[in-house]
């Protein structure tokens, strides 16, 4: 198998070309060039699929990777050597990720051509979406942290632009600013971490970092009293926290839903927000070395549970999905933290499919009904059967119902978390991770079904609200007035992407068996491909592996039969693995999560279908208020931290600068000078006067002044001068 430039680069380049063409000539193309974007992503998908096929069907050993580099720029001069390399790193994980990103992106692009039809920002949307996709694909292909950061930021820019695409809305501006700045907080730390690693390791290639870790070379001077490994790990995780919207930096993601729904589906649900998880997974050996995995797990748990609680009280359909995204990202981070490496990555993939599908379904609803407040929806099942079907599949998946993908991945994470929290001999306080994780899982099932029930079941409330005359403005800028709900017909662009995505919510695609756990292997061990292909990087194998120049042909790896690995692999990469206990934990976790998921669904059913239990909001108004205020994070960040703290400091400094420093110190020096100048002038005048009395003359300046006064042209002044001169003459007469 041979990979050259031509077989990898088009994955990244074809969306770039589409971006460039659309950016410059999009307005002149028919349909603003959206077909070009779709086509370019399809090309990426084809090339990705080919690579995935190669890896999947055992062309390479399971631990095989391709690493190709070229020099971007070179600062070497004289005795100094410094080169910045760019390159491609392909392994099992990135081949899966590439397929997922390009596939989901393709379907979302296709859906967008329908959704954004007749939207005035159609052209802009199809400029930024291919750019975003190319950046995400580039990020996955990157072989080093530096180029990862590059694409990371470009994605942030696309996110900024797409959130703010309806720029005439004040809220869109706020949301885009908030999104960019919040992620930027993490980004600068990520950059700092990259710089630190670069200067100590001498490179930021994954391969070199792994090798350095394996050889114990990964230690630099401690920074701010923190050991170097912990510092860099924290920095990189800070970047991940920003991008994946983890607990203290989570505030941007819910607001990011100001953008068009397909954009949210791609960027803020399926791909970009998982970039943080991606970098955490790539740098997993560093996280272990820096001993911050427990921290990651705790942050993930807090995010997972906290976001789920907020999602329970949201009424906007997109807000529910946004908070569920936050919550699911929390699960991924739990997965990273507790060492559930491949389950965390599997959750990235499964989540991408079902969350993209959920968002697209929500977009379909909004596009059809022009309403996104759930209390004003209801009974849409008969109008939108396909959307209902797709959305139901995804809801089942995200709720963790067996046979669906969410169960497979989340359950493994929770099983590992259970082991991590209770059996791995960790700090007992870390038991909070599985507790919050399971609680969050129950809440997830509850709020997702609440959403389903409120939207698709019960009676239709759309017309009630229209009577009241306060039409909610949806993200199309249309008012909800006067729209009839049309019955949905199977449409190539609007429904087919949903249905395709819905197909991938089935668990057996990922688990290789029907239920997901090892209750019964339908296809035999070989089909547990995910476990086999994805494993935490074994850093030892990267020592002494050569790099390849970008244009070279790679050598074929040794084929190792996948099932040879299977029996020894649990997929657990966390501390103190004990296969037996781990298995116990997984069994307990599986049953527990099934029970919790079903009880969540059941409660939702009682509340919103049977209406035999009062909804939560009526029972606990205090808690509901707190949840609706989103724990006051926005208030705390914006009103207190930024407006009072940062801006106050800024105003104070600016005042200090211009009002005090410049006015008094700098201009004060000028004033001192002026005093000195006056003093010397006075001295001059005295001296000059003395000289003048002696008849030696006056300064030009004084002379000027006198002449100017004397030659005023005023006749009366001449009289005065006449008399004074006469008088002075007389006074000098010696009589």
């Amino acid at each position, binding site marked *: 198998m041979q990979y050259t430039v031509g077989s990898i680069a088009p994955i990244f380049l074809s969306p770039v070309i589409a971006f460039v063409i659309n950016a410059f000539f999009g307005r002149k193309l028919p349909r603003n060039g959206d077909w070009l974007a779709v086509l370019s992503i399809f090309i990426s998908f084809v090339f990705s699929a080919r690579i995935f096929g190669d890896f999947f069907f055992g062309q390479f050993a399971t631990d095989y990777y391709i690493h190709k580099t070229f020099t971007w720029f070179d600062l070497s001069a004289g005795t100094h050597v410094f080169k910045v390399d760019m390159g491609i790193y392909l392994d099992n994980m990135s081949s899966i990720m590439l397929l997922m990103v390009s596939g989901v992106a393709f379907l979302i692009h296709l859906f967008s051509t329908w959704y954004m039809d007749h939207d005035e920002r159609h052209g802009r949307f199809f400029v930024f979406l291919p750019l975003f996709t190319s950046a995400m694909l580039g990020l996955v292909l990157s072989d080093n942290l530096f180029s990862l950061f590059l694409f990371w930021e470009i994605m942030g820019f696309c996110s900024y632009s797409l959130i703010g695409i309806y720029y005439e809305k004040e809220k869109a501006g706020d949301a885009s600013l908030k999104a960019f700045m919040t992620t930027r907080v993490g980004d600068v730390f990520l950059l700092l971490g990259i710089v630190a690693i670069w200067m100590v390791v001498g490179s930021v290639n994954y391969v070199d970092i792994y090798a350095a870790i394996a050889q114990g070379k990964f230690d630099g001077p401690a920074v701010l009293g923190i050991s170097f490994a912990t510092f860099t790990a924290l920095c990189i995780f800070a970047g991940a926290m920003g991008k994946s919207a983890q607990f203290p930096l989570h505030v941007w993601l819910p607001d990011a839903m100001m953008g068009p729904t397909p954009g949210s589906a791609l960027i803020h649900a399926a791909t970009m927000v998982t970039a943080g998880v991606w970098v955490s997974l790539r740098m997993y050996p560093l996280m272990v070395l820096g001993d911050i995995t427990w921290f990651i797990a705790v942050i993930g748990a807090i995010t997972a549970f906290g976001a789920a609680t907020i999602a329970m009280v949201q009424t906007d359909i997109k807000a529910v999905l946004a908070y569920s995204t936050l919550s699911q990202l929390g699960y991924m981070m739990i997965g990273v933290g507790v060492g559930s490496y491949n389950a965390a990555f599997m959750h990235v993939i499964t989540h991408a499919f079902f969350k993209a599908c959920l968002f697209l379904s929500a977009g379909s609803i909004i596009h059809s009904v022009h309403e996104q407040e759930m209390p004003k929806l209801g009974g849409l099942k008969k109008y939108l059967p396909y959307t209902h079907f797709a959305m139901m599949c995804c809801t089942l998946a995200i709720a963790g119902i067996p046979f669906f993908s969410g169960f497979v991945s989340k359950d493994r994470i929770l099983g590992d978390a259970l082991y991590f929290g209770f059996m791995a001999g960790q700090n007992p306080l870390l038991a909070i991770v599985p507790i919050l994780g399971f609680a969050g899982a129950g809440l997830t099932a509850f709020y997702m079904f609440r959403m389903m029930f409120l939207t698709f079941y019960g009676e239709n409330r759309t017309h009630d609200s229209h009577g009241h005359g306060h039409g909610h403005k949806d993200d199309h800028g249309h008012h909800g007035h006067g729209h009839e709900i049309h019955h949905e017909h199977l449409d190539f662009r609007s429904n087919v992407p949903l249905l395709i995505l819905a197909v991938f919510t089935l668990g057996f695609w990922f688990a290789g068996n029907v239920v997901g756990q090892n209750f019964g292997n339908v296809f035999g061990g070989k089909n547990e491909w995910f476990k086999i292909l994805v494993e935490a990087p074994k850093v030892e194998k990267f020592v002494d592996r050569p790099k390849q120049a970008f244009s070279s042909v790679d050598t074929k790896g040794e084929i190792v039969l996948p099932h040879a690995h299977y029996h020894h692999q649990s997929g657990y990469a966390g501390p103190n693995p004990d296969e037996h206990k781990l298995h116990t934990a997984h069994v307990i976790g599986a049953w527990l999560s099934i029970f919790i998921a079903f009880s969540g669904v059941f409660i939702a059913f009682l509340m919103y279908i049977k209406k035999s239990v009062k909804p939560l909001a009526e029972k606990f108004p205090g808690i509901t208020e707190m949840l609706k205020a989103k724990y006051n994070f926005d208030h705390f960040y914006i009103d207190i931290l930024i407006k009072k703290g940062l801006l106050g400091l800024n105003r104070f400094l600016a005042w200090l600068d211009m009002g005090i420093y410049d006015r008094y110190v700098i201009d004060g020096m000028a004033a001192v000078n002026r005093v000195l100048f006056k003093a010397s002038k006075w001295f001059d005048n005295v001296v000059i006067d003395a000289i003048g009395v002696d008849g030696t003359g006056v300064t030009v300046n004084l002379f000027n002044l006198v002449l100017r006064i004397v030659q005023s*042209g*005023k*006749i*009366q002044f001449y*009289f*005065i001068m006449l*008399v004074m001169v006469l008088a002075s003459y007389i006074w000098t007469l010696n009589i």
Partner: protein
Amino acid sequence: MVSLASYLIISLILFVVGLVVMIARKNIVAILLGIELILNAAALNFVAYSRYATNNLDGHIFSLFIIVVAAAEAAVGLAIVIRFFQIKETIHIDEATQLRN
């Protein structure tokens, strides 16, 4: 007996008053009045010295000539004032800033 000093003092007062008028007043006619006062002060001095310091009447002759010159000066000066007024619509001294027009 009236002394020379008393005439000189009166002449001085006249002269100073004329000076003040010339300096302080802004009306051209008033300035001419001041000039008349000064000329008269001078003439008075001549006559007083002529009586107290000499035996001849040259001082008288001088004061007569002063009167003549004053008359000529007044005639020309007032003509200029009238002309000035025709052009500027004012006889304010500070408006007289140009020699032509």
